[in-house]
């Protein structure tokens, strides 16, 4: 098991130069997630347009290289998706990270394949999943509130 598999250049690049880092004014979705075992703390901000698409997404907080780079890559991937598409993708990611799916279906050149190494470090899967599950919770809450508003 090589450290390069976990800390590859893509991971380190996103860790040191995070995309879409920072808070957002008046987001449609704001969701905070914690990783109790290591103290990671992340907040995802999403702007949902009138068509139910993610038109803006940012993240703030602090954490290890794995959780931060995963969050950075996630924000790039989620922009432009409908909430349904986002949820579907999140569940695919979860399967891949927990070993129930194959990263190769993403295609060889997909940046997210850089997270493949995490599957060999069970203690770190939670770090890689944090941003995704936090967004998922945020989408669920957004839907719940939407329903509440309609009644």
């Amino acid at each position, binding site marked *: *098991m090589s*450290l390069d598999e*976990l*800390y590859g*250049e893509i991971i*380190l*690049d996103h860790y*040191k130069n995070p995309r879409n880092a920072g808070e957002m004014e008046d987001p449609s979705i704001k969701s905070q997630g914690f990783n109790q*075992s*290591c*103290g*990671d*703390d992340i907040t995802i901000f999403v702007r949902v347009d009138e068509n139910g698409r993610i038109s803006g997404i940012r993240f703030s907080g*602090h*954490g*290890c*290289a*794995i959780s931060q780079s995963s969050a950075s890559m996630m924000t790039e991937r989620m922009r432009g998706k409908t909430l349904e598409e986002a949820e579907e993708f999140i569940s695919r990611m979860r399967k891949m990270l927990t070993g129930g799916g194959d990263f190769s279906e993403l295609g060889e050149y997909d940046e997210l394949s850089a997270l493949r190494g995490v599957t060999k*470090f069970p*203690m*770190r899967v939670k*770090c890689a999943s944090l941003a995704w599950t936090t967004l998922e919770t945020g989408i669920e809450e957004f839907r719940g509130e939407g329903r509440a508003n309609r009644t």
Partner: protein
Amino acid sequence: MLDPHRIRTDFPILSREVNGKPLVYLDSTATTQKPTAVLEAMRKYYERSNANVHRGAYTLAQEATEAYEETRSKVARFIHAPSDSGVIFTRNTTEAINLVAQAWGRANLHAGDEIILTEMEHHSNLIPWQMVARERGAVLKFLHVMDDGTLDVGEVDTLLSDRTKLVGLVHVSNVLGTINPVKEIAKRAHAAGARILVDGAQSVPHMPVDVKDIDCDFFAFSGHKMLGPTGIGVLYGKPKILDAMPPFLGGGEMIREVQLDWSTYNDIPWKFEAGTPNIGGAIGLGAAIDYLDAVGMGEVRAHEERITAKALAALRDIEGLEVFGPEVRGGVVSFAMRGAHPHDIATILDQDGVEIRAGHHCAQPLMRRLNVVATARASFYIYNTESEIEVLVESLKKVKEVFARVS
């Protein structure tokens, strides 16, 4: 002088490999490894004498009871408690402190009463007081941690008032290694009419401790941090105070006479040991105390001072690495590395077989005080060698290399 290489032969786990490298176990602050003598004592009990204690008239019950109560005497001797009756077996330090917070706290705390704690407490000496303070309307006050990681003893006097009912503090910090002047603080607390509880989870395993000399009212520690098994801990309390306290948990063993609608309670310490206790765990703890006695607690402390001094010097030589805490300390070194999160450090070190802890160490308020979200922590015990410090340092250099690859 303690020879860690000789000691290592008593610990089977230390000969295993991790990720193809010899295990370098540097997390004894979390839990220590166990010598064969402890494992054998527990095995012998379960294979030859297993029975419930204080219940049967038969031979096995007598042997089990004697072994269990003998450990109580060993504990009392080990911490210089004046009598066995002040030694209560609990699950761990956390349960011991909860026992005091619930049994003593609920009977003695009233609205407006004050409890003084410190900013460097482990959550186990913070949350139990938050819980009982909320219930009783009591107020928590905190001694600050100074920039060098120590307490300002003089601040105790400014916080103590005629409403202060208890001062609770950690003997040795599990993050900074700070050795707090508990004897001096006990004196001031008593002068103000307050009780004092000392969390000794990181002191009893690592240095000679004398609860009579400290003159603390309560003292808590865990067996698994001193070569014993998990699931056994100790609360020492001054017998007079324990006697006056209501029970903690109700059930078997802690009673004298039971009617359908009322009961009278057993004498201390059994009044606080409801239900079948962890007999095997207590016997394991007894064997751990025998082991530490044979090594000598003065020797244990001297060895840790040597190892810690070497570690401090070596870590401070690494550029971009910051060490937290004072010069004089227990065998604990918390640090941060520029550009590398503690969790990543721990994963990279693990690839070299070096096991350290990363995170908030159950001390979130202290992390906030240090202005960090987490630290990496290496901690040492009797089986750690100077060459293991060299492995740690080499592995930390690798962390820097990994994170330097991309700018």
